[in-house]
C-alpha cells in the first residue's frame, strides 16, 4: 500500500512537471510561414530632418519555389518606411506588410553614399548587433551615386532574389577579380570602434535605365535593363566616407590589407611593345610590421604572392627561366605600384585603410596610447616601405604562346 502511494506521488510529480512545460504557452512560437524573410535592407536619407528611409527587400517564397511560369508576382517585394530609428521603421512596417519581419536570413545591407558621407555608420548597426535573432556576418555595400532603395528594388535575371545576387556577386568578384572588398557588418562595427584601422566598403551602382529598376519587364529580355554593378571601394576617415578608390587603387587596397583571394594582373610583355600578358594571382599574404623612429611611424609592408600565367598574347619565350623571372619582377612592381596608389589616397584622406595604427599598437603599445587620440595627425607622416614579391609557379597547360611558336 505504501509503495502504491509513493508510485502515485511520483506519477503526480511527473504529470505536474510535464504540465508545467505547457504553461510556457509556447513562448516565441512562430510558424515559419508567418515570417516575412528580409533579404536586404537599404538605408537612405529621408526628406524629413533626422529621419531615415528604410527599405526592406522581402522574399516571396511561393514564387521562388514553384517556378511558376504563369505567376505574375515578382520573386521579391520591397517596402519603404521612414523612421528616426531603424527599429521604429521595422515596427511601423507592420502597417504595410502582413508578415512579421524576420532578419536572421539577411543577405546584404546597402547604405547610401549620402549617409555614409555624413558618418552615420555607427548609428545604423546598433539594432543589428543588439537583436538576439540578428546576424552580423553579412556584407555591407555602399550605394554609389544613387539611393539604396533603388539598388534593393532591382530585379535580377539569373538569381531570383536580388539580395542573393548582390551577395554572390561580391563574393565571386572578390575571389576572381580582387577589386571588391567583402566587408561584413561585424568588421564595420569592430573597426568603427577601434581607432587603429579605418573601414573600407565596396560600392554598388546602377547601370542601364534606372527608370526600369524593379519592373518585371526589365528582366524579360536577354540584355536586362536597370541592373546593379559593383564599383570601387569607399575609403573612410573614421565614420565618414571620404573618397572612392577605383580599379588599380581599389586592388591596391585589397593587396595592402591582405584581402586578395584571387586577381588577374595585366602587364606588358616587354618594355618596348604593347602586347599584354595576364598573371593570375592565386595567393597573396601581406604582413605589416611597424616601428617608431624619431617620433615617426615606420611601416614595413611585405607582400608575398603566388600566381601563374593565365594568358600571354605576345612573342615571349616562357621556357626561359630568366624571362619568367623578369615577369615576376614586373608583376611585383605592378603590385607595389597599386599599393602605393592606394596608400597615397589613404594618406591624402587620412584614411588608415591598411591598419597601420593596429600595427603600431602591437609593436609599441606605450607610444600608441600617446598617439591614439590624434593618430590621424601622425598617420600621413608615416614612412612606408613596400616589398612586393610574386612567384610565378606555372605557365598553365602551355609553355610558349602561339605568337612565339609562329616566329
Amino acid at each position: 500500500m505504501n509503495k502504491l502511494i509513493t508510485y502515485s506521488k511520483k506519477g503526480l510529480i511527473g504529470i505536474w512537471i510535464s504540465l508545467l512545460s505547457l504553461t510556457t504557452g509556447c513562448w516565441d512560437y512562430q510558424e515559419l510561414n508567418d515570417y516575412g524573410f528580409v533579404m536586404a535592407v537599404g538605408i537612405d536619407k529621408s526628406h524629413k530632418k533626422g529621419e531615415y528611409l528604410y527599405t526592406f527587400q522581402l522574399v516571396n517564397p511561393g514564387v521562388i519555389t514553384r517556378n511558376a511560369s504563369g505567376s505574375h508576382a515578382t520573386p521579391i517585394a520591397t517596402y519603404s518606411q521612414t523612421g528616426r530609428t531603424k527599429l521604429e521603421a521595422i515596427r511601423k512596417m507592420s502597417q504595410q506588410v502582413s508578415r512579421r519581419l524576420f532578419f536572421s536570413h539577411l543577405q546584404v545591407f546597402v547604405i547610401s553614399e549620402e549617409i555614409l558621407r555624413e558618418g552615420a555608420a555607427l548609428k545604423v548597426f546598433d539594432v543589428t548587433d543588439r537583436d538576439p535573432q540578428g546576424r552580423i556576418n553579412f556584407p555591407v555595400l555602399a550605394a554609389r551615386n544613387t539611393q539604396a532603395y533603388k539598388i534593393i528594388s532591382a530585379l535580377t535575371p539569373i538569381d531570383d532574389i536580388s539580395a542573393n545576387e548582390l551577395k554572390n556577386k561580391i563574393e565571386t568578384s572578390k575571389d576572381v577579380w580582387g577589386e571588391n572588398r567583402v566587408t561584413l557588418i561585424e568588421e564595420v562595427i569592430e573597426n568603427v570602434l577601434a581607432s587603429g584601422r579605418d573601414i573600407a566598403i565596396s560600392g554598388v551602382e546602377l547601370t542601364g535605365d534606372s527608370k526600369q529598376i524593379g519592373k518585371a519587364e526589365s528582366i524579360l529580355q536577354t540584355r536586362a535593363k536597370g541592373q546593379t554593378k559593383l564599383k570601387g571601394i569607399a575609403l573612410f576617415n573614421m565614420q565618414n566616407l571620404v573618397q572612392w578608390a577605383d580599379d588599380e587603387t581599389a586592388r591596391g587596397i585589397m593587396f595592402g590589407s591582405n584581402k586578395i583571394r584571387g586577381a588577374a594582373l595585366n602587364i606588358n610583355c616587354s618594355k618596348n611593345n604593347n602586347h599584354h600578358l595576364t598573371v593570375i594571382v592565386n595567393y597573396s599574404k601581406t604582413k605589416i610590421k611597424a616601428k617608431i623612429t624619431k617620433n615617426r611611424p615606420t611601416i614595413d609592408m611585405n607582400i608575398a604572392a603566388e600566381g601563374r600565367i593565365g594568358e600571354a598574347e605576345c612573342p615571349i619565350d616562357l621556357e626561359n627561366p630568366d624571362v619568367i623571372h623578369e615577369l615576376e619582377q614586373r608583376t611585383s612592381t605592378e603590385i607595389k605600384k597599386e599599393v602605393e596608389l592606394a596608400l597615397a589616397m589613404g594618406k591624402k584622406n587620412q584614411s588608415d585603410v591598411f591598419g597601420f595604427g593596429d600595427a603600431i599598437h602591437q609593436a609599441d603599445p606605450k607610444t600608441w596610447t600617446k598617439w591614439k587620440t590624434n593618430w590621424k595627425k601622425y598617420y600621413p607622416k608615416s614612412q612606408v616601405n613596400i616589398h612586393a614579391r610574386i612567384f610565378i609557379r606555372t605557365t598553365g597547360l602551355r609553355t610558349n604562346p602561339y605568337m612565339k611558336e609562329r616566329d
Partner: protein
Amino acid sequence: MHSNKETDKSNSNKSINKNITLSSKLSLNLTKLKEFLGNSSDIVIKRLQFHRHEIAFVYITGLIDQKETRNLIKSAKLEFVRLEQTSPDEDMMKIMKEMLSEGELQQLTELEQIIPLLLSGNLVVLGDGWSCALIVEVAGGKIREVTPPQSQTVVRGPKDSFTESIQTNQALVRRRIKSPNLHVKSLTIGNITNTSVSLMYIDGIVNPKVLNQVIKKMEKIEIDGVLESGYIESFIEDKAFSPFPTILSTERPDIVAGNLLEGKVAILTDQTPFALVVPATFFSFFQSIEDYAQRFDISTFIRILRYIIFFVSMVTPALYIALMTYHPEMLPTQLAISLSAQREGVPFPTVVEAILMEMVIEALREAGIRSPSPLSVMISIVGAIVIGSVAIEATIVSPVMVMVVATTAIASFATPNYSLAISARIIRFGLMLLAAALGLFGITIGLIFLTVHMNTIRSFGTPYLAPFAPFELQDQKDSILRAPLWALNLRPKSILRKDDLRIPKGQKPKPSTSMDDEGNKNNE
C-alpha cells in the same frame, strides 16, 4: 523429461490440492483420473483386457506421437495374445516395463505427479492391481518446423531460428556449443499453464552473481500463466517504468550462443520462439550477429550508422518542429524560404501536422503488421497514394512533413532490435511535445532527462550504459566500434567484472612467409 525435475514445484499447484495415491483398482483409478481432468473429451483411455489382467493406456490426443502410441498399444496386444497361450500368470507389470523400456520410463504412484506428465504429452499406463502408473515419454504432435528467422534476418549468417518447442530450441543452442560446460537449468512457471522455462549458461564463464540473481528472480514469479517470454521479462527486469528494454529478446540461436560465450544467461520459454538474454546493456541492442560475420571495418561503419539511425528515428520530427517554429534562423536561407513556401496554405500548426502524420504512419505500421496478408497491398496503396500524394496536393500537410515522417519511419525500421525501435517510437512523441512547447531547449531537456534515466538503469547488476558509464577501456573494442576478432581478447569486463581471456593475443594474420623463403633461396 524437462518438467519432472521440478515436480515439487507442481506440488504447490493450487488446482491439485487433494493428495491422492493410486489404488490397486484400475477402474477406480481411471474414474479418479477422469474426474480430476473434468471428463475432458480430449483424454483418450484405451483399455485392454485378457484373462484376469486388465491394463489401460491414457493419453491426450494431439500431445503425443500418434504413430508411436499406436505401435505401443498394438505390440501390447500382441504380447497379450502371446502370454495368453504361454504363461498367463506372469507378472504383467514386469512385462510391460520390459516392453516400454525403449523410451524413458517412470514409475509413479501419486496422482498429482502423474497429471502434469500426462498434460505435457506422456503416455500413462495403468494396470489392474498395480497401485502405480508407468509413464512413457511419447511427446509429439504437431510442432512447427525450424524456419528462417522472421524478425532478425541477416544476409550472411545462419538461417535457423527458434520454434515454439523448448526441446528444439535447447538443441539448437547445444548444437552450437558442444561443451559439457553448457548447463541447462529447468523451472516450471505458471500455476495453471505449468510452462517449462530453462536457463542456459556456460559454467565457468558466466558471472555467478548474475546467474543467482536470475534464478532468485525467476523462482519468485507467481503467475497463473506464461504464454510468451515477455511474461517472464516483465517480472525479472530491473526497472519497471522505463521506455528502454533491459533484457535482450531474440529468435536467433546464434545470438544466444554468442551471448552465452560472453558470459550471459539465456532464458528459454516453452511455446515461444523468443529467448531472453541477460544482462543486456543499451549498446548490446545495436549489435547484430552479422557484425561478426562481416569484416571489422564494414561492421564498425554499419554499427555507427545504426546509432545515427536510432538517433534520427528518435529526434527527427522533434527537430523539425523546433526548427520550424522556434529557430528558423538556424535553417540555411534557401531551405528556410523553400520550407516557408511549402507551409503556405497548410491549415494546421506544425506541431499538429507532425503529430497527425506520425499517428498516421504508426497506424499504417500497425495495420501492416496486424491485418490479414491479402489486405496488405490495399494498405500500402492507401498509405502511399492517399496519405502521401493526395494529402500534399490538398495542402493538408506540407511535402517536407511527409519526408520527415518517412525518414523517421525508415530509420525506425532500420533499428536492429524491435524492442528498442519501439522505445524510440514512444520517446519520439514525448520529444515532439517538448519541442512544441520549448523548442530546441525542450529537446535538450528531454535528451538530458533520457541520459540521466539511462544512467539509473541496471540490467542484472550491469549498468545500462556500460561500457561508457562506467567507462571500461577494454570493452570499447566491441561497443560502438567492432575491432577485428583477433583483437577482442577479453570477454566483456563490464559484465563479468574480471579479465577473462577469450582469444589469446598475437593472432593478427600476417602475409605468409613461404614466398619470402623461396626468394631467399634463389638469392643464395
